[in-house]
């Protein structure tokens, strides 16, 4: 089964990470060479994918309209669902990016009393949003390892995130949220028959890998503390191109790192590229101004058409018989 294949893949990753932790040469590889390799693949791959999409032309303006068009002045247009200018398009895109507008529409369907009934199904939206926002916050918080002195906004972000001051060290809200989000997404995939049916190995793998990163991160923070000073030294070493093998960071840290590098390397060739793709989607990022402005197709080639002359040639007699005007008598 696809889920099992994904589990095995993550297990293999974990074991290799353990192997790495206990071998000096390999851990040098992981902490001094792989960071650059992974980062290069990630950035290079990301750009490659975007360029590849961007190079394909957009021959037609195929906006999907989800609200009233701009037509007569007394009919109220819906600028965010059927944008007719650049500003409205940006508004529409912002809603999609930051609030997952379209996902918010989600419903589910059941046949009740011989009739389909549509129920509200906002859970996917809620947990999807929870996961993505907390992921963003966590990534931003990680910047504290790479920057010295830590810039104030990162500090405030961490403070707000740890607002409730539960436990020592403080439990971050984003950590709770991302666990909740990922767990929901994973359980949903596993338990909803329809979703299990469409899920590929890679779909489970993405979630398991992210869960793996989050879990090892939490373990280091709350159960097997890694020496943060050493972690910071390591990270600063990377950015100053003087990586030094870390001491006292613990086995879990090696697993955490291996997972992260796997994610970075895999990212550009995976569905996770939706992060870049969402900006380019022609059904969302084009204005519904089709009849206002002509859209050009770079490869618009002539095709074989049936001209009026050919038409009249065939039907001239019949047209005359019916009393219809003709061009040539």
């Amino acid at each position, binding site marked *: 089964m696809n889920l099992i294949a994904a589990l095995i893949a993550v297990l293999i990753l974990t074991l290799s990470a353990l192997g790495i932790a206990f071998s000096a040469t390999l851990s040098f590889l992981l902490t001094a060479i792989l960071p650059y390799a992974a980062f290069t693949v990630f950035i290079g791959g990301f750009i490659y994918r975007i360029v590849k999409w961007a190079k394909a032309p957009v021959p037609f303006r195929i906006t999907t309209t989800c609200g*009233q068009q701009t037509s007569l002045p007394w009919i109220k247009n819906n600028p965010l669902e059927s944008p007719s200018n650049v500003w409205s398009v940006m508004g529409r895109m912002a809603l999609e990016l930051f609030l997952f507008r379209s996902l918010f529409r989600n419903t589910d369907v059941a046949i009740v009393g011989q009739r389909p009934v549509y129920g509200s199904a906002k859970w996917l939206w809620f947990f999807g949003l929870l996961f993505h926002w907390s992921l963003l916050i966590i990534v931003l918080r990680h910047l504290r390892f790479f920057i010295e002195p830590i810039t104030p906004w990162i500090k405030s972000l961490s403070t707000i995130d740890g607002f409730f001051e539960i436990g020592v060290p403080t439990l971050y809200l984003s950590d709770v949220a991302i666990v909740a989000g990922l767990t929901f997404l994973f359980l949903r995939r596993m338990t909803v028959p329809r979703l299990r049916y469409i899920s590929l190995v890679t779909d489970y793998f993405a979630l398991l890998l992210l869960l793996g990163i989050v879990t090892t991160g939490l373990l280091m923070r709350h159960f097997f503390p890694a020496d943060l000073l050493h972690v910071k030294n390591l990270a600063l070493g990377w950015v100053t191109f003087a990586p030094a093998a870390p001491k006292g960071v613990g086995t879990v840290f090696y697993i955490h790192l291996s997972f992260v590098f796997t994610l970075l390397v895999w990212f550009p060739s995976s569905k996770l590229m939706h992060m870049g793709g969402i900006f380019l989607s022609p059904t969302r990022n084009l204005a*519904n101004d089709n009849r*206002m402005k002509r859209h050009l197709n770079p490869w618009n080639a002539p095709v074989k058409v049936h001209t*009026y002359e050919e038409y009249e040639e065939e039907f001239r007699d019949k047209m005359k018989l019916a009393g219809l005007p003709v061009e040539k008598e």
Partner: protein
Amino acid sequence: MAAVKTPKPDELIAIRYAPPETPWMETPTVFRPGTWSYSGGAKSLTALGLPNPRAWQPPDEDWKLPANWQSIILEGLRERLEKYRSFRLFMDICVRCGACADKCHFYIGSGDPKNMPVLRAELLRSVYRRYFTESGKRFGKLAGARDLTIDVLKEWFYYFYQCTECRRCSVFCPYGIDQAEITTMGRELLSLVGCNINWVMEPVANCFRTGNHLGIQPGGVKDMLEFMADDIEDKTGVHVEVPLNKKGAEILFVTPSGDYFADPGTYTCMGYMMLFHEIGLNYTFSTYASDGGNFGLFTSHEMIKRLNAKIYAEAKRLGVKWILGGECGHMWRVLHQYMDTMNGPADFLQEPVSPITGTRFENARATRIVHIAEFTSDLIRSGKLKLDPSRNDHLRVTYHDSCNPARAMGLFEEPRYIIRHACNHFHEMAEDTIREKTLCCGGGAGLGNDENMEMRMRGGMPRAMAVKQVKEKHGVNRLACMCAIDRATLTSLMDYWVPGVTVMGVHELLANALIMKGEKERTTDLRGEPLEGKAADEAL
């Protein structure tokens, strides 16, 4: 082949949403009678110069494909990936979140998981991965990739002709992935090796030659319009003219040929003619551009362009100022989103201005074609029409948003404005089933043929049930719509699921209410059905 009997509604509604035991890649496609369309006839393909004309039918073991069919398809795939950003992107970024899954009316009505938009896309995406991505080449099935085999091709045919390209899935997808776009590509690829359906190819061949899908020749168009003019005179006492191929007219009127071919579309067409007469519009029909509809949309982008070219050409030849388009769904997808790009620029026309109200249709300033609902609602708003909505009191009306005007234009308020002024009893269907979330009639995109009846009834079920609900709640007996395909397909759909509800165009409703100069007292509507109150008077 004899027509198969469609199961009874009670049997059809017993839908199970549990997926089969076998994974989808291992579940074979069965061409069950009633769920597929006859193959495109050799004659039509030859007439259009399309590849591999031959006699075959989908359930046949041997599809008589060219020996190198695989390389033709793969080459076609490569070409389309390079030409359409939409296609390449939609192949790459789906996360299989399943938000689109239960939004497709074919899935809701059949429970077949391959009718979930996401899986319909995977049918093609799996082949894309296998031949065009590194991970697919290397890891095969682990990366969700599979070989292009004859069974895969047959599966494509079955499921790409079980999608009405309605774009409902695209509304719900967080990235706007539009299965209609993927289906279009799939159909284009199938067409490259000669696999088409007849209910698309025959109309296309007709349309190319005679200007309309039904193959009506110039005299026939004239006869039909004149017949309708006589009918109007019978019902209203007003004689309306039938301008045809008239040079120097101000406006060219294009409408789907379904409107002058058969009931109930003809009543809508009579509605246009009465309206134009009443406001004294200087317009013309055309026999060459005798169909605004364009079944090319259901086979390939190239065919859209081939069939659409006549509209601007005819407007230019007749020397009109601008074009007015009648009530149709897919026709408007083409006119709004493709025509100008494909066959423009329309620089020989003028920016449309209503000759009656002086309103400038700013939103059509480049393409120079106005939707009749925009035109008419402006007339009503400007007080140019005298309407007696009580003449529609025998009707309890609901309104079906056709997929294309809804999700490819955003035309929601104009028709409702007309309906509200033309009748007194208008009831909307449930929120989840109208406007951008509207549910398809189940027979669009070339699927409205008889051999495919079971699938049509399944696909149309969600729409029908929404109508049934307002019928039970408000006594609705009339389903208004703005689409010629709908007027045909919804009629069968209502007969099957919601008997007692009939279908009409918005301009039929308007024409019933339209008070014309010099008309006699109307005792019936355009269909000859007695008006409420009038029949009772006579009985006294």
